[in-house]
């Protein structure tokens, strides 16, 4: 009788087998330019989350000196004046930081342990953040504190004041009468002031929040819609396909920017409205891509095996098929984020974007003057460069991801 047992491997493997995503990530981040772009975007996200602590008119803390009748009081004006949005975003930042620490500390564990720990911590942290966020949204009352703490500090009415690095809020104006509008960069305002006497640097930093928010949230909405429609049409085909593709054509046939303009003009200009509008007009490309991928994947052996083992449909679709078909969609999502940042800036430039005095890079470009008569190019330079670099960073990462997953470039470099 022949011996069917496999001889044991006594030699260690030349290299450890890597999961697909680790392989893609390693190839993606190999070029220096991509690493720089990623670092830039990470910094921008951190600024977007923490901007009230970076650019704000109120001091972190100050002391109201003792006077007749009461002792000295320590106050925390900045923290008392944070809005519920600010608190929620701070909670998100904290959650991301904690998850980052977990990821780093679990690096040396074995793979199952590592995955287990990361998953558990993710679930716990996400849960806590969601609960905290809804509590904040429900209980926190926004306060409007218009006290000019800088002038109080100057006149000695408060002492020991610690101001943020950029001591100006995005809507805080210099008095128009004092000739402090449209100022060139100076010690007082590092990038000058705009036509309403507001600090340019502070507005640039606050604009990052709008740009990043629109970029990420709108594309998450678009991805969710596109993945659902694309997965269902691609997997089932037939009548699902016909209906789903008609839906895609319906949205696609109207020029996108025109559709967005119509939505915005009719339904409103709140930042959440704009995120949703860009999302619901931008999902069709993702649906098309995923549909094509699912057509290809649905007859592969491992899908048949998954179906045959009696798994629920959602598990087959999203656990087995999606990870193998989602990479082209992710490439497209990178370009989509760049597109969303551009669209938001364009809407704000045309004056139909987020409402003033909210700082958006597009509206800052617009307020740099009427280009045909008065053009203050230094005011246009900051927002223009930031839009350009942000969009370029998203595009470069997307392009690099496309190269990383493209099997024809495997041998190169």
């Amino acid at each position: 009788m022949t011996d069917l047992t496999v001889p044991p491997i006594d030699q260690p493997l030349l290299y450890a087998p890597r999961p697909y995503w680790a392989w893609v990530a390693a190839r993606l981040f190999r070029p220096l330019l991509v690493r720089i772009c990623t670092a830039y975007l990470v910094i921008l996200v951190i600024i977007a989350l923490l901007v009230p602590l970076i650019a704000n008119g109120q001091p972190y803390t100050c002391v109201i000196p003792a006077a007749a009748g009461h002792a000295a009081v320590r106050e925390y004006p900045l923290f008392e004046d944070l809005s519920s949005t600010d608190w929620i975003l701070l909670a998100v930042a904290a959650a991301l930081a904690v998850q980052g620490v977990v990821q780093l500390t679990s690096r040396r564990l074995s793979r199952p342990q590592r995955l287990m720990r990361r998953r558990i911590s993710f679930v716990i942290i996400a849960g806590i953040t969601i609960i905290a966020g809804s509590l904040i949204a429900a209980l926190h009352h926004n306060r409007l504190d218009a006290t000019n703490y800088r002038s109080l500090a100057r006149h000695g009415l408060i002492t020991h004041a610690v101001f943020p690095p950029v001591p100006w809020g995005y809507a805080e104006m210099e008095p128009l009468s004092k000739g402090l509008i449209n100022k060139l960069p100076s010690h007082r305002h590092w990038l000058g002031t705009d036509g309403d006497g507001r600090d340019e640097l502070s507005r640039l930093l606050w604009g990052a929040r709008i740009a990043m928010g629109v970029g990420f949230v709108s594309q998450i909405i678009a991805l969710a819609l596109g993945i659902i429609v694309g997965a269902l049409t691609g997997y089932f085909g037939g009548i699902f396909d016909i209906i789903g593709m008609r839906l895609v054509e319906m949205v696609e046939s109207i020029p996108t920017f025109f559709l967005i303009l119509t939505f915005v003009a009719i339904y409103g200009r709140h930042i959440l409205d704009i995120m949703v509008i860009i999302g619901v007009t931008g999902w069709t490309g993702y649906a098309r891509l995923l549909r094509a991928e699912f057509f290809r994947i649905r007859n592969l052996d491992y899908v048949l095996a998954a179906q045959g083992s009696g798994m629920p449909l959602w598990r087959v679709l999203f656990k087995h098929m999606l990870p193998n078909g989602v990479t082209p969609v992710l490439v497209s999502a990178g370009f989509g984020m760049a597109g969303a940042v551009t669209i938001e800036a364009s809407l704000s430039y045309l004056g139909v974007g987020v409402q003033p005095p909210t700082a958006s890079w597009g509206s800052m470009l617009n307020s740099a003057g009427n280009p045909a008569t008065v053009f203050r190019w230094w005011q246009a330079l900051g927002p223009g460069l930031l839009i350009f670099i942000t969009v370029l960073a998203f595009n470069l990462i997307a392009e690099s991801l496309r190269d990383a997953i493209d099997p024809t470039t495997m041998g190169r470099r």
Partner: protein
Amino acid sequence: MTTYIIRRLLLMIPTLLGMTLMLFIIVRMAPGLTTGGGQFSAGIMQSRQAQKQEQEILERRLHLVDKNGHPISLPMQYILWLKSTCEGHLGTSIVYQEPVMTLIEQRLPVTLTINAIAMAVIYLVSIPGGLITALNQGKWIDRSYGFFSLALYSLPVIWLGSTLLGFLANPQYFNWFPSAGLHSTNTGNMTFFQYIADYLYHIVLPIVCSVYGGFAFLSKQIRGSILENLQQDYVRTARAKGLSGTTVLTRHVFRNSLLNLITLTGMSLPGLLSGSVIIEQIFSINGMGRLAYTSTLARDLPVIQDLALVGSVLTLLSYLAVDICYHLADPRVIYD
């Protein structure tokens, strides 16, 4: 092929029905519409009576009320609008007090000319660009062309447009180019060639702004299709039978790669007609994009509805045309 075309045309019907319904719901569910009609009428001096009359005419025109002044239900409004559109009557603008068809006839040539010139420039740069980068795949020229075209693609047109206008068409700095419009004021006493020269002089900046973003995508596509074709068996055959490298490239590879251009051109046709809102707004060009922009801001419902309708019919038709042309150019491609 005929059955395919008929099937595609039939499939367009549900798409268009769904599109019109979606559009109708978006536009008609907007808050504050029925009362807002009269405020756009031109005459401030009109009496109350005249204003009221105008409002009534407007409401009847939008199928909000019937002949006797009774309000019509929303689904019925939709059916009536669809009916009059199918009979070929596009609406009448509230703001301009002119039929939408007239507005389109005025604006379309403006947009079409600019976009056609822009597209020609894009092709003139991108086709050689794609060819050169494909032949030098992986070398520095390929990489730097790829990077710079992507950088140009990422350059926001709102920044470049306003900066160009601010520096080159501004008495404050250099007053080299006109800042707005497409013609000088004294076009009446110009000869034909002066007229053309004046027009070209006016469209320099808008054309620059419309073309620079288009190079990246098109060159990348052409590069990709040339690289793909270079690996085909027929190229090896052609080389093996002794054709020179240039002949293989120009007669075989390049011509086959141009097939992809059909798709790309077809996909960009709707954009050609609809125009760029931002460029037309920055340079004050009265084209289709600006019409769309002003009418959405003024909530000029008939114009919004009809522009979207015309746009989507043209888009769907050009998608169909792409597929048919592809079949004609490459008979191996068969649809069923």
